[in-house]
């Protein structure tokens, strides 16, 4: 049922519209979002130099395109990729969160998908918690499990599941503080749904990262320490 899938992905999209959040919540999340964007812009500028504009642009368009396809998620419905952890694993914490923030800015300004005033909260949840947090969770797990494919698979799976669930829990808390949706209902509904979305997200992200690891491992992000040592060799 095509219309049904639109409804589902609408509910699962996790873009907070205008009018759902109160002023204090908007203020705090905007400060976090602007800080994240400012620092990641600086980092990306020094990492990529004059490649920043074309490369970040197409990568943001890539995440946008990847979010368009629906796939079955556990529980019999369908969802789509959110791509936060994917961006972090592929591009690193700074470029990854910048790209995800840019996707939110274009979705908010151009497609009215997610509010203008709530854009700070959306970037905070998906960029800061989803991508930035997701990347560091991935790295921690990978360091524990091992540097090979197994470490990547386990790290990606855990990071995508937890980043989606955590971001949804934070969104539920923001809605509760704003007095829009009571905490218990919001938490149960949001986290319940997002555990299932997170499982789908984890499966697809693992498949994507494995594919890139097998065909073009040089494109996966390596932290700057390793990059430098590779250059010195």
């Amino acid at each position, binding site marked *: 049922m095509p219309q049904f899938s*639109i*409804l589902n992905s609408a509910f699962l999209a996790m873009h907070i519209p205008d009018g759902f959040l109160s002023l204090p919540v908007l203020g705090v999340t905007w400060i976090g979002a602007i800080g994240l964007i400012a620092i990641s812009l600086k980092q990306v500028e020094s990492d990529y130099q004059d490649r920043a504009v074309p490369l970040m642009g197409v990568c943001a368009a890539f995440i946008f395109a990847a979010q368009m396809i629906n796939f079955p998620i556990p529980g019999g419905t369908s969802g789509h990729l959110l791509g936060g952890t994917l961006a972090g694993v592929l591009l690193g914490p700074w470029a990854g969160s910048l790209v995800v923030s*840019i996707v939110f800015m274009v979705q908010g300004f*151009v497609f*009215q998908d997610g509010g203008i005033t709530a854009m700070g909260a959306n970037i905070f949840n998906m960029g800061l918690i989803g991508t930035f947090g997701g990347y560091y969770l991935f790295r921690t797990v990978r360091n524990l499990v091992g540097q090979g494919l197994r470490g990547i698979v386990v790290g990606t799976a855990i990071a995508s599941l937890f980043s989606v669930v955590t971001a949804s829990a934070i969104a539920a808390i923001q809605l509760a503080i704003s007095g*829009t949706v009571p905490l218990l209902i919001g938490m149960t509904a949001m986290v319940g749904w997002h555990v299932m979305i997170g499982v789908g997200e984890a499966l697809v992200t693992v498949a994507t990262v494995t594919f890139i690891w097998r065909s073009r491992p040089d494109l996966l992000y390596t932290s700057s320490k390793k990059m430098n040592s590779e250059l010195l060799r």
Partner: protein
Amino acid sequence: MPHSHSHSFHSHTDHHDSNHSHSHNTIAPTTRIVCTLIMVVAIVATPDAHWLTWLIYGCGIIVLLGMSQVDLFKLYQRLAVESIFVSVSVLGILFRDGEGIVWQWGFLKITLTGLLVFGSVLCKLGLTLVLMNLLTLTIPIPVLLQNLSILRVPPLLIAILGSMYRYLDLLVEEFTVMRRAAIARNLLAGKRWQRLVIGNMIGSLFIRTYDRGNRIHQSMVSRGYQGALPLPKSPKIPWRDRLAFGFTLSFAIFGQLAFYH
């Protein structure tokens, strides 16, 4: 229907070509962006149940709609798609807990508090959506992105936003072609395989995208790109724009004060 992004995507790309309204064109895009944001913030900042304030704002927006001469059918089409998007989350608010039960059926109940919050969110949502659609219908998107510099958005971010918008259509198209190919080869039939196939598709799209980004960079360098795109200098603000700005600000404040009288 894959996802309603694709919906809105096409309805967004086909309107730029010819017919934006001209009556509005006397006021600079930067002024229009700032005025829209003032109103959006005023609408969102209005405390719950201040119905009169939203009524006044609504009347103002209707007058603005008339003046802008936008294609009302196009506006309706967009609002229809966008309201499907938000309807589910709005309905969640209606059935929340609170004081003063108005209606109950099993565990579903509508309370007075729920109704108040529901109505308030609905007002805020509707008004801001109309305003933002009015903005994007009357300014071509590349111009809108360029003029974000008025909001102190750094030039590098504006350049990346512009570059993303330029390649959006291309990447969406490329992905659609890949999906069509997968469907034609019967790869998306089984549920178990579907996620693996989609994962591989996204992976190969990323490889293509990254290489494309590098090729774009090389062609930019060969055309003399040195790391900064020229941004249009902001011209002096004419009196008409100052007037529009002042009027919007006082209208926003008037709406807020009207509730207390």
